[in-house]
């Protein structure tokens, strides 16, 4: 059934109003009549009228004054002015203010109806144009939104960043308060990200969902969008968290890539009837973009994690080979020396026997150090290293290991510089002594004899920075972060460095410094030298 247009007639002539209501009513229009400008305004405020017929002279206002107000309220209204002969001038003026036509009184009904018809025709055309324009704008908006989602999710190969960016765009472009994404993992749907849920509701958000059952599983397994206008009436128990959060409607779309579901995107709002076909189309499009980005990220992650695993595996194998080598070398000396003394076929002289014993003693110490390193590393890996932090003067830290450092640097020049004014640090002196010894030992290993090794300390805000600098071969820029990794082995140590280390020294240093709440870093220029620095909190 066609809804007939509504017409408001404003005139202070009651008889005229009666007649006109009958004529227009007979033609099927819905007619309202009022006799003052005030009444007209409140009538128009209540609802839209297609046509307003205004007498130009009203008791409480001039029709030409009323017209701009009406046009302001409803720019699309068809206004027809009625005028006596004397006020034609005013009526012409009102055409300039937006009136569709004017008619002189007494009004010829045929003429009035034909004017109304023409007016309504124009109005229909205008509204249709506007609708088309809006449609176009909406399509543009959808396209732009998809483009911006696609750009946002393509920014990263990090799965979490992609999901977060996508959910932000969903909120931005649809105005929906809540959005969330589930992705398939280990044969279940797992929550991969959410936005707009209060912490209390987040607690109720299921971490996992079944692939087949419930609303979420349904969207996933059917590969089709679902809209639930009233959550209070419809939808599975898996959406209870939305009901508890006071949300009214829900829509979900599958995340599809080449016909395969990889998850779902769900949105919810506390407003009703939000999900127009346009919005659903938009959500489906966003779902496609997310699916592509997620798949890319997953493929990338798979590729890089298997690479990382392989690297770790290689490092472990190398580590085992190195540890084996490091343990077997002193063991070979101990076993060989003791075994020499036990051989029945040769009796060694006193001096040689003593040499064997000295070797056994020395390499037993080497073994002990190695075992200590390995233990320390396993403690660090288990986060079980205890540091006994007490306020200590920086110079005391150095003094404690001075003999060891001087022993290491007999072929080098060791310079220690500490300003008198330096505040004490909160440190475990024994552990920090190990760090210093390790750093100096490295400096010796990687620099020529007769070069200088400098140990310096200076305050920086609430920290003390301690550094060990050498004039050695340096570290290539691409290796500067890697040197702190477990099992990393420096190559090209200088000639005469008898044994390779365990590859644990700097990893242990980092562990000890970090257990103090400090940081350790390296600056180096290949060929010029290397400076290791670490920070400790001031006491």
């Amino acid at each position: 059934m066609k809804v007939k247009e509504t017409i408001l007639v404003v005139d202070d002539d009651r008889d005229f109003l009666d007649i006109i209501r009958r004529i227009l009513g007979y033609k099927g229009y819905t007619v309202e009549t009022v006799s003052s400008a005030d009444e007209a305004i409140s009538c128009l405020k209540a609802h839209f009228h297609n046509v307003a017929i205004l007498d130009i002279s009203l008791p409480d206002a001039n029709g030409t004054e009323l017209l701009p107000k009406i046009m302001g309220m409803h720019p699309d209204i068809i206004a027809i002015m009625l005028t006596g002969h004397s006020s034609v001038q005013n009526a012409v003026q009102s055409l300039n203010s937006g009136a569709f036509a004017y008619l002189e009184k007494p009004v010829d009904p045929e003429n009035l109806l034909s004017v109304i018809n023409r007016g309504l025709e124009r109005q229909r055309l205008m509204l249709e144009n506007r609708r088309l324009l809006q449609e176009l704008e909406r399509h543009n908006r959808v396209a732009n939104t998809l483009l911006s989602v696609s750009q946002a999710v393509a920014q990263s190969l990090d799965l979490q960043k992609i999901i977060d960016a996508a959910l932000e765009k969903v909120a931005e472009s649809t105005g929906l308060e809540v959005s969330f994404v589930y992705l398939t993992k280990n044969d279940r749907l797992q929550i991969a990200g959410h936005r707009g849920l209060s912490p209390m509701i987040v607690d109720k958000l299921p971490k996992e969902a079944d692939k087949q059952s419930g609303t979420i599983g349904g969207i996933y397994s059917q590969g089709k969008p679902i809209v639930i206008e009233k959550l209070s009436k419809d939808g599975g128990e898996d959406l209870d968290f939305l009901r508890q959060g006071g949300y009214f409607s829900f829509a979900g779309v599958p995340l599809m890539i080449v016909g395969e579901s990889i998850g779902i995107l769900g949105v919810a709002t506390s407003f009703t009837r939000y999900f127009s076909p346009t919005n659903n189309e938009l959500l489906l499009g966003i779902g496609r973009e997310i699916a592509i980005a997620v798949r890319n990220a997953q493929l990338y992650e798979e590729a890089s994690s298997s690479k990382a695993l392989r690297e770790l595996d290689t490092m472990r194998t190398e580590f085992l080979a190195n540890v084996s080598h490091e343990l077997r070398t002193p063991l070979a000396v101990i076993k060989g020396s003791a075994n020499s003394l036990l051989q029945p076929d040769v009796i060694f002289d006193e001096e040689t026997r003593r040499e064997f014993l000295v070797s056994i003693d020395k390499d037993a110490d080497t073994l002990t150090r190695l075992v200590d390193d390995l233990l320390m590393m396993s403690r660090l890996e288990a986060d079980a290293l205890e540091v006994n932090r007490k306020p200590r003067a920086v110079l005391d830290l150095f003094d404690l290991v001075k003999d060891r450092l001087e022993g290491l640097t007999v072929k080098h020049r060791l310079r220690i510089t500490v300003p008198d004014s330096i505040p004490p640090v909160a440190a475990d002196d024994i552990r920090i002594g190990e760090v210093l010894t390790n750093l100096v030992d490295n400096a010796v290993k990687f620099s020529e004899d007769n070069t200088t090794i400098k140990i310096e300390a200076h305050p920086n805000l609430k920290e003390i920075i301690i550094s060990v600098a050498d004039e050695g071969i340096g570290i290539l820029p691409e290796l500067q972060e890697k040197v702190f990794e477990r099992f990393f082995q420096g190559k090209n140590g200088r000639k005469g460095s008898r044994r390779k280390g365990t590859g644990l020294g700097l990893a242990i240093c980092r562990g000890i410094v970090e257990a103090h709440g400090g940081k350790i870093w390296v600056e180096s220029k290949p060929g010029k030298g290397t400076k290791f620095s670490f920070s400790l909190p001031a006491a």
Partner: protein
Amino acid sequence: MDKKRIMIVDDDPAILRLLSTNLKARGYEIVTATDGEESLEAVQKEFVDLIILDLMMPKVDGVEVCRRVREWSDVPIIILSARGDENDKVKCLELGADDYLTKPFGIAELMARIKTAFRHRGDPSVAPAQSSFTYNGMEINFAKRRVTVDGKDVTLTPTEYSLLQHLAVNSDKVLTHSMLLQSVWGNEYSSEKEYLRVFVGRLRRKLEPDPKNPRYIQTIPGVGYHLAAIK
């Protein structure tokens, strides 16, 4: 009899001292080197009867020294390794090492290995009664320790020669793995099947026109080897 000269190559001074002392006490002359480069220089300057070579060394490592020495010399090489890795062992033997010992080791064990290596060098007491062996283009002159295939000289290391000689002298039987290991290397080697596999491979590469389809040394799977076809 002249003293035998042994070169010890190891970057660990304690090991060098330990080995020198023991070998000197048993009548050997000693030359030492602390890295691969030094050992390659030394081994070209002066004659040595045997090389004891550490595997992990700075600059040129033991594997590389072994490979390069084998390019021009068949001097026996015993590898000392602190990595107990089976792959390393096979790799070294394939590159021409004669023996492989894992650290730590006993002095007696090392002395036994050195003796085995020297035994392969041609102890007259193990030379066969017959003076030569000929089969399908291959000729072995036992007196001169000389091998030719189709008239061309083939250079073998002492261990390779020992193995070939043993196969030739017993060419009428199948020799089991443990028989071969015990007679060519010694009793303590009877379970070192890798040695046998590697050395048979080395011999085939030197003797056989097509090592994949050997015409001389035949494999009897699960049992052992024999030279030529059994009728």
